[in-house]
C-alpha cells in the first residue's frame, strides 16, 4: 500500500506537479523539508543580528532607513518560512526550541562578526547574493508552500543585494579609509560566502534524495559556480580584488576556476566553534526569555476577553 502511494507521489513529482500540505508524502520527505525550511527560517532570524549590530550606527538617515527595512524584511521572511514549516505539522515554538537547543542549524555565515560599515555592503552583496542563487533555484522546489515563499522572498532579496552592492561601490570609490574597509570586508566575507552553498556534492549527506524529490533543484557545486561567475565581474567593476590567488577565467569550461575552500573551518563553524555561534544563540534566547512575561500577558488578556471577564 505504502509502496503504491510512494510511486504515485514520485510520479507526481516527476510530472512537475507541486505537493501540497494535505497530500500524502513519505515521512522522509516531510522530515527533510522541515529540516531545510526551518533552517532557512532560522537563518533569516539569526541573520538579523549581524546587521542589527549596525542599525544604530548607520551613517546617514537614508542608510539607516534602508538597513532597518532590510532587517524588518528578514523578520518577515522568517515569519512566512515558519508558517510554511508549520504546514508540515510542527509548531513555531517547537522550531524555536530546536534553534535554541542547537538541534536545528542556521546558515553558518551569520557566525562571523560584522566589524565595519562595509560589512553591511558585503552581507547584502555576497551573502544575499549567494542566498539568491540558491533561492532562485528553490522557486521550482516540489513543495508548494515552500516554492511560493521562495518566489516572494526572491523579489525582496534581489533588492537587498543591489543595496549591498551600492554600499560597497560607494565605499570602494570613497576615501582611502573607506576603500580599505571595503577590501577588508570582501576579504573576510568571500570564503564564508562560498561555504554557504554547503559541502562538495560528493560529500553532501542530503543531496541525493533531495534531488530525486525535487526539493533541491541545483547541486551545491553548480550553484556555487554560478555565484562565483556572477560575482567576480561585479567585484572587477568596482575595483575590488577577490582574495583568491587561484581565481582565473577558464576559456574551455567558460567558468572561473577558483581555489579550494577551507573545509576544516567550515565544519568547525557548523559544529558550533565559530566566532559568534554562542553569542547569536544566547542573544536569541535572552530576548525570548525577557519577552516571556509579555507573551504571557497577551495570552492572559486574550483568555480574559474570550471568557467575557471584560467587555
Amino acid at each position, binding site marked *: 500500500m505504502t509502496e503504491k502511494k510512494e510511486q504515485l507521489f514520485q510520479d507526481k513529482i516527476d510530472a512537475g506537479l507541486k505537493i501540497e500540505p494535505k497530500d500524502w508524502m513519505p515521512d522522509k520527505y516531510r522530515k527533510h523539508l522541515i529540516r531545510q525550511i526551518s533552517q532557512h527560517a532560522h537563518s533569516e532570524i539569526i541573520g538579523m543580528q549581524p546587521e542589527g549590530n549596525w*542599525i*544604530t550606527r548607520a551613517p546617514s538617515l537614508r542608510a539607516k532607513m534602508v538597513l*532597518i527595512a532590510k532587517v524588518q524584511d528578514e*523578520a518577515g521572511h522568517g*515569519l512566512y518560512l515558519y508558517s510554511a514549516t508549520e504546514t508540515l505539522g510542527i509548531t513555531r515554538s517547537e522550531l524555536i526550541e530546536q534553534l535554541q537547543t542547537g538541534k536545528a542549524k542556521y546558515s553558518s555565515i551569520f557566525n562571523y562578526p560584522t566589524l565595519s560599515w562595509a560589512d553591511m555592503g558585503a552581507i547584502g552583496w555576497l551573502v544575499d547574493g549567494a542566498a539568491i542563487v540558491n533561492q532562485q533555484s528553490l522557486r521550482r522546489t516540489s513543495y508548494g508552500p515552500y516554492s511560493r515563499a521562495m518566489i516572494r522572498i526572491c523579489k525582496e532579496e534581489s533588492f537587498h543585494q543591489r543595496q549591498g552592492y551600492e554600499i560597497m561601490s560607494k*565605499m570602494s570609490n570613497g*576615501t582611502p579609509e573607506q576603500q580599505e574597509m571595503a577590501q577588508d570586508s570582501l576579504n573576510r566575507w568571500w570564503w564564508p560566502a562560498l561555504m554557504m552553498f554547503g559541502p562538495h556534492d560528493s560529500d553532501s549527506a542530503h543531496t541525493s534524495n533531495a534531488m530525486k524529490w525535487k526539493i533541491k533543484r541545483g547541486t551545491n557545486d553548480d550553484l556555487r559556480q554560478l555565484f562565483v561567475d556572477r560575482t567576480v565581474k561585479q567585484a572587477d567593476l568596482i575595483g575590488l580584488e577577490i582574495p583568491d590567488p587561484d581565481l582565473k577565467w577558464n576559456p574551455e569550461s567558460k567558468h572561473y576556476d577558483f581555489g579550494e575552500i577551507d573545509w576544516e573551518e567550515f565544519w568547525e563553524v557548523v559544529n558550533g566553534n565559530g566566532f559568534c555561534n554562542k553569542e547569536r544563540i544566547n542573544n536569541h534566547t535572552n530576548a525570548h526569555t525577557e519577552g516571556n512575561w*509579555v507573551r*504571557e500577558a497577551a495570552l492572559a488578556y486574550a483568555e480574559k476577553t474570550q471568557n467575557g471577564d471584560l467587555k
Partner: protein
Amino acid sequence: MAKDSLYKYVLALGDDALILGQRLSQWAYRAPFLEEDIALSNISLDMFGRANLLLEYAATLKGNGITADDLAFKRNERQFTNRILFERPNGNFADTMVRQFFLDAFYKLFLQKLTGSKDEQLSAIAQKSIKETAYHFRHSSKWVIRLGVGTAESHTKVQSAIDNLWMFTNELFEMNEIDNEMLQQKIGVDCSSLKQEWIKIIDEVLAEATLKRPENIHMTTGGREGIHTEHLGHLLSDMQYLQRAYPDAKW
C-alpha cells in the same frame, strides 16, 4: 528673524522624531516575538521618515549647503532640542510601550492641528504623519491595555512605567517663545490647549487597562532649551560615530 524661528521650530520637531526613531531601532531583533520585531521596526521607520522630511526642510531653511544628515549627525547634546520624553531609554517592553502611548496620543492631537498650518510644508508633513500615528496609537494603546489587564506581573510593570515616565509628560504642552511666535503666525500649534484632550485620551485607555494615572508628580522640563538627561549623549555618540570619525567620507 522669522525664518530663523521657523528653522528652530521645524528642527525641534525633527529632533523629536529622530531621537524616538533611534530609540525604537534599538529594539531590532530583541522584541518579545517576531511580529513585534516587525511592528517596532515599522514604527521606527515611520519616525525616521518623519525626521527626514522635517530635517530636510530645516536644512533648506538654514541654507549654506547644510543637509539633513549634517543636522542629524553633527550636532551635540546642547544643540538638540527634542523634548525629554522622546529620549528616555527603552527599558523593558512596558516602558517602551508607555512612552510610545503617551507620545502617540500627543502626536494624534498635535498633528491634527498642524495639518491646518499656514506653512504648506508643515501641513503636508502633518497630513502624511497623522495616518501613521493613527496606527501607532492603536498599537501602543492596545498594548497598554493588554499589559494592564494581562497578568499581575505585567500590570505591575506597566503601572511602574507610567509612574516613572509621567514627570516628562507636561513638557509636551509647554510653549516657549518660538512656539508662541509660530502660533501667532498661524504656522505652529498651541500645545497648551491640547493637554485636556490628551488627559482624556490617557484616562480612557488607563481605565480600560485597570491602571492609575499618577498625581502630584513633580514635572521636569528643559529639552527645548537643549537641557537633556545624560542618556541623550550616549545615544548620539553611538548614532554619530561614523560621521564624526570620518568627516570627509560620503556614505
